[in-house]
């Protein structure tokens, strides 16, 4: 086939001049070639496409169907119950309401916290001081660690008797809270451990973006008499807004799906005090075997994340680019 290719190509350029003389053979050849390329195309993408359809799209659709059923893995087949799962989920005081508010608080604090902290660290690292290379490496390292390892490490650090938390609060003359075993603190424990994992990633992205900022704009502003805080407020922050936008969207999506830290740190408890949407989906399906409820919760989460993604796509088109 490969040997044929040049032969097929060359006549194409002269086709117009000789049009109508020997069109049949040529077009047959071309059809065959197109066909072969098409077959090759499907053969090459088949493994990836199959995996994506079978383990990505199909489950999403079938999960939607399951959300209108009741099932416990034991009954022979799911039983259709219509909207019942959703009606139960959206009752005031339901587990979903608690999971939604926990997820919202977690996402809000984690995203805002890592953005503010990451920007501050990024600015600091861009000051060209010695040793900042080491700090950059150290800051990024937690982002590489398995969430399970981070959860277990922080479980020990939060230990009110023998963990670092006791030492830190001791410095302030206070007792350490019982982070993971009291419902007032369990969600905050998760937020802190998660933020520690992500902060360095945000900081490094800001750091790299800050080094990319256009120098001449700052020089012009300095000539106009802008100083310190003004430069930061009216130049740096707006110039970094595309990066901030990216970090907000990916931050929401990542935080909303956090699971491993919750599993190792609190297991969604005590009670449901640190139950977020992903934990509820898991808990309902694989601990309580309420398949329909789990599927309906997953659908709610999917719709919420889809809205975030759509807002992102819409805003991304309107975004101001300064470069």
């Amino acid at each position, binding site marked *: 086939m*490969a040997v044929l*290719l040049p032969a097929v190509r060359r006549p194409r350029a002269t086709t117009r001049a000789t049009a109508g003389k020997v069109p049949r053979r040529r077009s047959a050849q071309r059809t065959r070639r197109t066909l072969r390329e098409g077959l090759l195309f499907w053969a090459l993408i088949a*493994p*990836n*496409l199959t*995996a*994506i359809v079978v*383990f*990505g799209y199909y*489950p*999403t659709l079938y*999960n939607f169907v*399951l959300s209108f059923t009741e099932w416990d893995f034991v009954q022979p087949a799911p039983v259709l119950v219509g909207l019942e799962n959703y009606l139960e989920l959206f009752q005031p005081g339901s587990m979903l309401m608690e999971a939604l508010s926990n997820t919202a608080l977690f996402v809000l604090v984690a995203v805002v916290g890592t953005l503010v902290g990451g920007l501050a*660290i990024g600015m*600091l690292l*861009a*000051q*060209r*001081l010695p040793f*900042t*290379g*080491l700090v950059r*490496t*150290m*800051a*990024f390292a937690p982002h*590489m*660690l*398995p*969430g*399970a390892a981070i959860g*277990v*490490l*922080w479980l020990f650090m939060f230990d009110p*008797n*023998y963990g670092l938390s006791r*030492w830190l609060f001791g410095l302030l003359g206070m007792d350490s809270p019982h982070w993971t075993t009291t419902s007032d603190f369990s969600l905050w424990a998760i937020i802190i451990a998660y933020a*520690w994992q992500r*902060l360095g990633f945000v900081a*490094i992205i800001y*750091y*790299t*973006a*800050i080094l990319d900022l*256009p120098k001449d704009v700052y020089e012009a502003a300095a000539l106009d008499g802008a*100083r*310190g805080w003004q*430069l930061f407020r009216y130049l740096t922050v707006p110039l970094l807004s595309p990066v901030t936008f*990216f*970090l907000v969207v990916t931050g929401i*999506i990542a935080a*909303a799906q956090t*699971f491993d830290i919750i*599993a*190792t740190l609190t297991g969604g408890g005590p009670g449901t005090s640190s139950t977020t949407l992903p934990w509820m*989906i898991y808990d309902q*399906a*694989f601990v309580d075997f309420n398949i329909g409820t789990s599927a309906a919760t997953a659908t709610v*989460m999917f719709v919420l994340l889809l809205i975030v*993604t759509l807002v992102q796509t819409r805003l991304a088109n309107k975004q101001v680019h300064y470069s």
Partner: protein
Amino acid sequence: MTLTTPRPATPAAPRADRPAPTSPGTGAPRSRSGRSRRRSTGPRRPLPATIALYVLVAFTFAVFAVPVYWLFSSAVKPEQEIYTFPLTWVPSELAWSNFTDAWTSAPFGAFLKNSVITTAVGTALEIGVAILSAYAFAFVKFRGKMLVFAVMVGSLMLPGHITLLVNYITVSNLGWLNTYQGLILPGIGSAFAMFLLYQQMRQVPTELVDAAMVDGAGHLRRMVTVVLPICRPMILTATLIVLIAKWNDFVWPLIVTSTADMRTLPIGLMFLRSQEGYDSWGPVMAGTVIVALPMLAVFFLAQRRIIGGLTAGALKG
């Protein structure tokens, strides 16, 4: 046939170069950050400001380094030094017994084997599958292929948790629960790695590929001898990112395995901590080190490539 030297223009590589240690304070190139513009008013930063900045840098370092130090030091602390207050910061001796305790109280040998197998095979399959599909989209002629591309990349929008339940049912129907194929195969479909590689392949100079075609090379030869060598930096970056994600994977191995001998390390660690609980932090921290250390090693060996790959998406805008 003009064989221009292909410039391995990876989108990630230039980024990766940037976090290189910058030569400190030569004074000539002024830092471009907003705050340090203040320095342009004078030749040097005033001393108090310098000291303040150093304190801030040290504090930042401590925020990230102290928990990591705490992890490693606790893993080698003798038991009585863990259960004391005030805390023991430096272990008086290296108690490797924590590692043997962890290793014997949970089948860490099996966890490690399972993690290595699922990570290695899963990464190889995902990258292989991603290379084939990226090549198809970049070089094989097919009408409407961008529609297929959009469908595949669109799968990035499906959150992992919505597929969890049905994938469990599918794998169960296939009889794959608690098997390696059940652990590995649902994760090999890859829009992310494919997208990275596709973007790289589009930048391969067409003259090179055409030249190989004129020489009679079929698609397979062109892919192996022309395209893949040029794309090697990006393939390596994608491999590292996929490898880290597979090693750290949690929720899928948690639900698909049901016996201890099939668990991967992160799942094994969770069960170790619920078995040993609050009474033996030494072995639990030793287990955590076993889980975390391979990724730290990979990161320190290839940090520029990894950081470059992970941050490229943010900075290309």
